[in-house]
C-alpha cells in the first residue's frame, strides 16, 4: 500500500510546510482584528483593500507594466551576461583585460545608477529597463565566467581528442557551467525585483513601487499594506518559479538542490 503511505507522507509534508504560515496568518488576523491604530489596520481590511485595488483595472495599469519591465530587463541581463561571461571565462586574455573593470562594476551598488540613467537617458520605460538590466547583469556575468573557467580540463581535452566540432564543444562547456549560470541568475532575480520597485518609487507614474508609495503618501494605509503584500508575494512566486525551472534544467546535476550564494 505504498500509495496510501505516499499520500500520508505528502500530507505530512504539506502540513509541515503550511502549518506555521497558516498559524502566523491566523495570529495576525486575530491580533489585528480589533486594531484601531492607523498604521496597523486589521488584516480583514487589508484583504478587502487587496480585492478593491489589485483585482480591478489597477492590475492592468500597474502590475502589468511592472512585470513587463522586470521581465524585459531581467531577460536582457541573462542573455548579455551569459554571452559576455562565456567569452570572459573561456579566454584568459579577455579575462585579464576586463577583470579590473569588472571588479569595479561588481561592487558599484546598482541603485546609484538610477540618478545617472535618469540624467543620461531621461525618464521613461527605457531607463527603468536599463537600471534593472545593469543591476542584474553582474551576478549572471561573473558566475558564468567562473563556471566556464572551472570546467574540468579532462573533459575539455577529451572533447578535443574526439575531435568534436567546435560548436558542440562550446555547448558542452556552457552545459558544464550551467549550475553556476543558474546560481547567478537566481541572485540576479532578487536584485531585479528590488531595482524594479526602487526605480518605480523614484521615477515613475505607474507600476507597483509607484502605487505603493502613492498610497503611503495619501495615507491609504490598508491599500498600502495590500501593495506591500503583493510585492512580497510576487518575490516569493518568482523565486519558486525559478526554483522549478532550475530543478528541471539541472536534473542531471548532483548538487542541483544545493544552495550557495544568496541574493538580497
Amino acid at each position, binding site marked *: 500500500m505504498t500509495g496510501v503511505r505516499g499520500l500520508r507522507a505528502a500530507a505530512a509534508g504539506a502540513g*509541515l510546510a503550511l502549518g506555521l*504560515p497558516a498559524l502566523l496568518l491566523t495570529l495576525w488576523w486575530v491580533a489585528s482584528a480589533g486594531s484601531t491604530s492607523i498604521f496597523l489596520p486589521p488584516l480583514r481590511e487589508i484583504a478587502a483593500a487587496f480585492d478593491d485595488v489589485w483585482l480591478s483595472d489597477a492590475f492592468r495599469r500597474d502590475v502589468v507594466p511592472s512585470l513587463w519591465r522586470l521581465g524585459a530587463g531581467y531577460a536582457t541581463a541573462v542573455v548579455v551576461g551569459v554571452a559576455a561571461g562565456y567569452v570572459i571565462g573561456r579566454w584568459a586574455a579577455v*579575462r585579464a583585460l576586463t577583470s579590473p573593470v569588472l571588479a*569595479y562594476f561588481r561592487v558599484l*551598488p546598482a541603485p546609484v545608477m538610477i*540618478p545617472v540613467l535618469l540624467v543620461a537617458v531621461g525618464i521613461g520605460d527605457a531607463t527603468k529597463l536599463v537600471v534593472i538590466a545593469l543591476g542584474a547583469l553582474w551576478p549572471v556575468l561573473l558566475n558564468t565566467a567562473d563556471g566556464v573557467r572551472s570546467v574540468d580540463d579532462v573533459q575539455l581535452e577529451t572533447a578535443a581528442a574526439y575531435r568534436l566540432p567546435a560548436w558542440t564543444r562550446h555547448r558542452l562547456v556552457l552545459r558544464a557551467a550551467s549550475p553556476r549560470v543558474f546560481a547567478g541568475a537566481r541572485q540576479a532575480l*532578487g536584485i531585479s525585483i528590488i531595482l524594479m520597485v526602487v526605480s518605480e518609487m523614484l521615477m515613475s507614474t505607474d507600476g507597483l513601487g509607484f502605487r505603493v508609495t502613492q498610497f503611503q503618501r495619501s495615507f491609504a*494605509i490598508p491599500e498600502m499594506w495590500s501593495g*506591500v503584500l503583493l510585492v512580497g508575494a510576487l518575490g516569493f512566486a518568482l523565486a519558486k518559479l525559478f526554483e522549478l525551472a532550475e530543478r528541471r534544467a539541472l536534473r542531471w546535476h548532483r548538487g542541483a538542490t544545493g544552495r550557495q*550564494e544568496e541574493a538580497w
Partner: protein
Amino acid sequence: MSADSRWLGGVGLVVAAAGYEVVARAFFAPEHVPPLSAVVPEAARLLTEERFWVATGRTLLAAVAGAAIAVVAGIVAGFAIGAVPPLLRVMSSTLDFLRPVPSIVLIPVLVLVLDVAQITVLLVAVSCFWIVLFQVLYGLRDVDQVAVDTARGFRLGRLARAVHVTWPTVLPYLGTALRLIVSVALALALTGGLVMGAAGLGELIWSSQESGEFTGMYALVLLTGGIGVALDLGARLAERRLLHWHVGTRRELAR
C-alpha cells in the same frame, strides 16, 4: 596574478575610460553625460571637501550598524533554529517565503513609524540577516558527524562541542556571508538615501541630480564605486585572516 595579466588589466581600464570619453563626447550633451576628463577633477575636488566625508561616514555608519545587527541576529537565530531539527522542518517554508520578499517594500510601512536614519539601518539589517541566517544554516548542515561522534566519545559537553566542532565548521560559511553582505549593506544604505533622503551619500547623489549638478553627481557615483572596492578588499582580507587555518584559504594562497 602574473605581471602580464596585471598589465593587460591596466590596458583594459584605460580602454574602458577612453571608450567612455569618446562615447560621452560623441553622443551626449556634456551637461547630461560629462566626459571623464570633467568628472575626475570634480571627484578629486570632492575628496577635499568636508561634506563628502561626512556623507560617506554616515552611509558607512548605517551600513556597518545594520550589518553588525544582522550578523549577531543571524548567528543567534541560525544556531537556535539549527540546533532543533523539528523546528527547522516547521520553519523552513516560512523562511523560504520571507526570504525573497524584497526588504525595500518595508520602506512605505516603516516610514510611518520610524525616522529615515533608523529605517536605513533596519533595511540593511533585514537584507543582510537573511544572508547570514542561511549561511549559518548551510554551515550547520555541513557539520561532520564523525567529528561530532568523536567529540562525544571524548565526553565533550554540549557547549564544548559547539565551540570545538560546530563553530569551526560554520565559520567558513560566515566568511562567505561577510563577503556577500558588504556590497548588500552598501547598496541598501545608499538606497535609503536615494528613496527616503536619509542623510548620506545616497541623499547627496540624489540632491545633486535634482539641483542639476550633474558633473558632481557623476563624480559622487565614481567615488561610490571606489568605496565599494575598498570595502570589498577589506572584507576579503578579513575573511582571509579569520580563516587563515581553513583549507580553502590555504589552497588559494598556495596558488
